[in-house]
């Protein structure tokens, strides 16, 4: 089972906090890889919240091709974070030419584009880069989005973190999602590493997604370009989140109703029975069947946790106003925020969605039996 840890804080934090919590949860894990998503960034990125940041790994050739490509499109580098690494990577971590984190200025032609249009174009670009990279095996692109950095690498999480010096000031952020990978296949494709990201939505999961194939088939047939190229059965959790919010225009309270709808009897007793019945019918292929704990993050920087319908996975949230952590194991939470009121720790059960909003004032819990917020 993969280790999951997320933290959201009013004060910027070093990604190492997340790595240390993962280290505590290490027992019984092979730690074959690590994935990080940082958002609500501090440091140099604080003042460029709108500039799209590209995160990825490149070979020497790849970066040349990439630079030409970006210049041709009119993208100008605004800020570049160079990760210089020592010559010898930790065991199992392949030698890379370049870890790239670079903020861009939008091309002139993009000025005046609506937010949605920009979002669509950024997505298309990321997909195009991925395709280019796959053709020549010289670039891997994780995200291309404002105020978001993603880092994924193979190897023991702590060793990779030290190797890449993830504690550096430039990477401090207020929202951090981290996953320690439990390897299930020998050749690891970095696109299969959590967290997954699409247009501001991110999520990571542990456990198997047994309903992957029908869900994948459904998403791929939506005609939305981003729902493609699946390397992991967990990536669909992120895409369902994106689909529910952006395509269906439903809030996070609805997400769980899509992936783990209530039983028919419970729907009949619900305040919004009619709506939920239709949602369950029309989104039937998106039902997951667990066992999964999902931790995700939304474009407004909220962080949330949901469990599968049977609550087969552990998962806990704790902290205090201004600082909350989400962890797949209690010891991870203890390591990150030891001095919290533990009696207020919350373990979401099979009906709950636990959310810490952008203000980080409290853990807001909604259960599926609650009446739903009105539709816009």
């Amino acid at each position, binding site marked *: 089972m993969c280790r999951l840890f997320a933290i959201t804080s009013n004060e910027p934090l070093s990604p190492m906090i997340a790595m240390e919590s993962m280290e505590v949860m290490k027992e019984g894990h092979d730690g074959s890889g690590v994935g990080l998503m940082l958002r609500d960034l501090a440091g140099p990125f604080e003042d460029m919240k709108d500039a799209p940041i590209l995160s990825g790994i490149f070979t020497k050739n790849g970066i040349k091709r990439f630079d030409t490509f970006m210049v041709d499109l009119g993208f100008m580098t605004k800020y570049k974070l160079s990760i210089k690494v020592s010559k010898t990577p930790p065991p199992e971590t392949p030698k890379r030419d370049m870890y790239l984190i670079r903020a861009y200025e939008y091309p002139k032609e993009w000025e005046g584009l609506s937010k949605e249009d920009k979002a669509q174009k950024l997505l298309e670009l990321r997909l195009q880069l991925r395709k280019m990279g796959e053709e020549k095996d010289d670039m891997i692109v994780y995200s291309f989005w404002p105020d978001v950095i993603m880092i994924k690498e193979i190897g023991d999480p702590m060793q990779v973190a030290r190797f890449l010096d993830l504690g550096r000031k430039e990477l401090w952020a207020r929202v951090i999602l981290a996953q320690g990978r439990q390897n299930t296949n020998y050749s690891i494709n970095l696109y299969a590493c959590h967290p997954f990201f699409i247009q501001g939505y991110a999520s990571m999961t542990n456990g*198997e997604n047994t309903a992957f194939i029908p869900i994948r088939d459904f998403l791929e*047939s939506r005609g939305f370009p981003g729902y493609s190229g699946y390397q992991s059965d967990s990536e669909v959790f992120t895409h369902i989140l994106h689909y529910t919010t952006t*395509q269906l225009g439903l809030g996070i309270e609805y997400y769980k109703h899509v992936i783990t709808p209530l*039983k028919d009897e419970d729907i009949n007793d619900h305040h919004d029975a009619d709506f939920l019945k239709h949602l369950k019918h*029309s989104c039937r292929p998106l039902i997951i*069947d667990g*066992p999964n704990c999902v931790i995700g993050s939304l474009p407004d920087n909220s962080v949330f946790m949901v469990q599968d319908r049977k609550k087969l996975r552990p998962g806990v949230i704790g902290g205090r106003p201004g600082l909350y952590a989400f962890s797949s194991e209690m010891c991870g939470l203890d390591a990150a925020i030891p001095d919290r009121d533990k009696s207020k720790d919350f373990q979401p059960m099979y009906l709950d969605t636990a959310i810490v909003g952008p203000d980080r004032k409290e853990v807001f819990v909604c259960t599926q039996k609650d009446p739903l917020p009105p539709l816009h």
Partner: protein
Amino acid sequence: MYPKRSLTPSTLSVKDLPWQISWDQGKCTLCGRCTAVCPVQAIELGVFRKREVSTEINLMSLPENNIKIWYGIRQKTDPAYRCVGCAMCNLVCPNNAITPIRSDEIDKLRFHTNAGGQPRRRGGRRNNTESLLDQIKFIRISMLTDPALDAGRHEFEIRTMLGRILSPEENLLRIKENGWIPPVREIYPLIIGGMSFGALSPNMWEGLQMGVAYLNEELGMPVRISTGEGGCPPRLLKSRFIKYVILQIASGYFGWDEIIRAIPEMKEDPCAIEIKYGQGAKPGDGGLLMWYKVNELIAAIRGVPVGINLPSPPTHQTKYSIEEAVAKMIQSMSMAWGFRVPVCPKISATSTTLAVLNNLARNPYAAGLAIDGEDGGTGAAYNVSMDHMGHPIASNIRDAYLNLTRIGKQNEIPLFAGGGIGKTGNLAANAAALIMLGASGVQTGKYIMQAAAGCLGSESDRCNICNIGLCPKGITSQDPRIYRRLDPEAVAQRIVDVFLSFDTELKKIFAPLGRSTSLPIGMSDALGIDDKSAADRLHIKYVV
């Protein structure tokens, strides 16, 4: 052979027949039960003459000649009275003295069952023991889902939907704008397939309906049953139980006069309307109820004279093209119930299924598509149609599902698979395989007849006389002297047994695959087969 009998081309010996009666003189009590019960009078009391020669060791005495007469059972060899292998004689024999035995070679009878130029007609099944569905294994056992799902302890929701489901976007839009949202029924994924009132005896029908009502009202299992083409008794039409019934309309429109007239008095809407365009057992051929079975009751319900053959035309005669037929009929049927009842065509599996499906995909009123494969059964058909016409269900349902997936409508038009599900007894495994290939649910008739009423038919051409009203079990007979053998209460109880055990078996398949809260429709990664070409054809894994 009697010496006086002439030797014609169609003169057969017992050896030439598919079923040969083995009778044990030592055990027989000559009670006469077998000859009385035999539905086709294949056996009769025989007087046998035997000469016994006895010679003493003593050479001085002359050999003696004794003629003995004894009584026993004689099997007729006239093709019209051939034994059908039903083994009712064996069932009633107090001493187990008689039993039919299947010929050890291809019988000669088959070359002579066309006396008068009339090819063989029969009921039953395809007489083919092969089952591709049985070859499919469930290979994706969830070893990583720790703790694994428990078929007995965890919550399962084994339900499917019958009705046109809108895309999520469209559905939300219609809610917002208060638009028409097509009716959708949440039902159990195993439907009792269409067997008409007329094909089945009143006792069988009553038993099925009682069983279905019990499953719904006492056990909370939303099981549905199709009427087949033959109408529906008015009392049922006007009762609350009609909501468990799928009313079928086919090219003969039998019974629809009664149904239309009953609409104003209906307390509940039927579950759905099924428009039958074809059936798997005899694709391209219409329904057939032979005159033997058209008694007063049947004639009244169907609105026809007594004692005539009732063939339905192969196509719906009032329409000149299938596209038009489908569109118009779906719309008129929807309108008849105020657009509150799903209307869903049923076709025989065919290489042109996708054309039908694409038409339906564009028709906003089409509520689903039932596809019936070549292994489907029937009450009456030409032997040639049953044995040689049709398309296997597995690849047809798979193609249909993948086609829907391509156009993004895999959730919008539920597919129901029929034909050969459980033909060798593996009902749950076959149903699960079809669901994972893409079916939203399955329909079965033969299995129900066998399990719930003790139908004797088999894939070795046993019995299969459903067409002539002599069903020895009273399942497909309209003669009260015969069908009183079948106790409706007992049928109902067996229906409940069948569904409960099916449910447990289905959970035993789904749980190890890590599926419980939704039906694993299209979960093809769970399937494997040890036949490379079949694996490629079905887009599932090849495993050896």
